[in-house]
């Protein structure tokens, strides 16, 4: 059983003057357990709509989605999920500690375990000092960290994160990446949307690119980066000790190494020159 299944998901909205807006056009996607999946797309591509449909906040026009085999329309589908909405907002008259405990209680956590877990996640998100303050006094970054803390408290198997790095400073972004990598080690499934390609490259197993409501491509990050290799930068040192940096084409590396060795040149460093995830993303979206 996959952690997330999306089958022929379509969502239409009614715009001004009763015009039909197709936000999502027949989306099909499967995300396995233990997989970190990056959902890439420009603004307005349909990422948040997909996530809202997955979490039962919107109703699909056609198609369906499942979390751990349970259809999103059922409350039961949310019992093993940690969800972080885009630009999250929480009851601002509560403190972070109260809110985390409220969330934990909704998942039926036992009081002692909830207290321990609340402390753990608040400390991890660097909110321990501010835990008693009402959230109305929090910065945007702090609210985002509360959002992440509330996804972690009940230790679910599936995490759905909508733009988790949004509003965070570099330290916060690094922390989120660490958390995702840690979840990956624990065998958790993380499905997160972003438009920042660097985030995907660093933490994801697979990536899907969506634009104009259509899923354009789904592939593993390794494959994408491998395919993107254009050539190599090779640093050689001649017998006289002269360093030389050479650009070698994708298919000429073996030939270049052999020739260098024949000429008694030592090879100091080989670096691949490849298109990064951003170039890949731009290429897909521009098609």
């Amino acid at each position, binding site marked *: 059983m996959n952690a997330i299944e999306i089958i022929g998901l379509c969502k239409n909205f009614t715009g001004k003057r009763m015009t039909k807006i197709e936000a999502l056009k027949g989306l099909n996607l499967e995300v396995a357990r233990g997989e970190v999946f990056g959902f890439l797309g420009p603004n307005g591509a349909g990422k948040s709509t997909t996530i809202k449909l997955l979490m039962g906040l919107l109703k699909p026009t056609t198609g369906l989605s499942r979390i751990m085999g349970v259809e999103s329309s059922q*409350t039961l589908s949310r019992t093993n999920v940690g*969800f972080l909405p885009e630009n999250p907002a929480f009851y601002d008259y509560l403190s972070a500690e109260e809110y985390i405990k409220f969330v934990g209680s909704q998942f039926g956590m036992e009081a002692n375990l909830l207290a321990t877990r609340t402390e753990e996640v608040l400390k991890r998100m660097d909110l321990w000092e501010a835990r008693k303050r009402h959230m109305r006094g929090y910065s945007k970054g702090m609210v985002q960290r509360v959002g992440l803390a509330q996804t972690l408290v009940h230790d679910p198997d599936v995490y759905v994160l909508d733009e988790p790095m949004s509003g965070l400073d570099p330290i916060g972004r690094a922390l989120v990446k660490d958390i995702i990598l840690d979840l990956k080690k624990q065998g958790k499934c993380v499905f997160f949307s972003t438009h920042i390609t660097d985030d995907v490259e660093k933490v994801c197993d697979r990536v899907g690119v969506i634009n104009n409501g259509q899923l354009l491509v789904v592939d593993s990050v390794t494959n994408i980066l491998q395919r993107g290799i254009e050539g190599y930068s090779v640093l050689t040192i001649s017998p006289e000790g002269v360093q030389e940096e050479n650009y070698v084409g994708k298919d000429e590396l073996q030939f270049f190494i052999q020739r260098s060795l024949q000429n008694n040149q030592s090879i100091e460093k080989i670096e691949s020159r490849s298109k990064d995830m951003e170039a890949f993303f731009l290429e897909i979206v521009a098609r």
Partner: protein
Amino acid sequence: MITIIGITLKGIFRDRVFQGIIALSVLFLFIPSAASLSMRQVTELSITLSLSLISFILLLLSVFLGATSLWRDMERRYTFSVLSLPIGRSSYLLGRFMGLTLFLILTSTFLGVLACVMIKVSSSIYPSDRPIVWSLLVLTLLFTTLKYILLVGVALLLSTVSTSFFLPIFGTICAFLASGVTQQVYEFVYSPSAEKLVSPLIKMLVTALYYFLPNLSGFDLKVNAIYGIPANFTGLGVTVAYFVAYTAILLGGAAILFNRREMK
């Protein structure tokens, strides 16, 4: 659902609504002196003023808390995080309603105690020939509270379909105003004097509105409390049954509409 009730009450207290009520309740201190302006009916007037003030405060609370509670959650995007937890939308709605109901009961009790103290003070300064029937006073307070709990139901129902606070607030106020006259209008159109004046179409319309709009006239026991007139318990039983049925219909409708609502 219990946690939602708790969260609702916490929100109301932390938004300092209760402090506002305490500030407003200072007005009760002026009741004995205001009632003394009436030469012979000081106790009666103090009961009238106390019950009217309680009614006014409960009206403000039911309209503004009822109409803004759900709307604010959607407007401030709290619903995205809360409704993505394993909470059914109906439970969430019911939790909100129960929280608001508990707060109304609490406020009503607090104001009721204050009113009793002031009525006692007034009656001890200017003793009345007619004894105060405290049980009737409590009964009046109970039915006043039920009336405003039902109004919270109206406000919540309107909140589930509205994207702004205008419809819930003004719709609830309109429903409240209409609820006080539907009985009279209904009785008038079916009276012999209106036989030739009112067309059958208007009669049908009035009948439809009479059953559709809340009828809160049966909840008003002020006259009984003021003049010590015994209450008609059969009538009160019908009013309680009406309260239960109408509130259930309101909440059922609200739950259906809220379940269908898209959280865009």
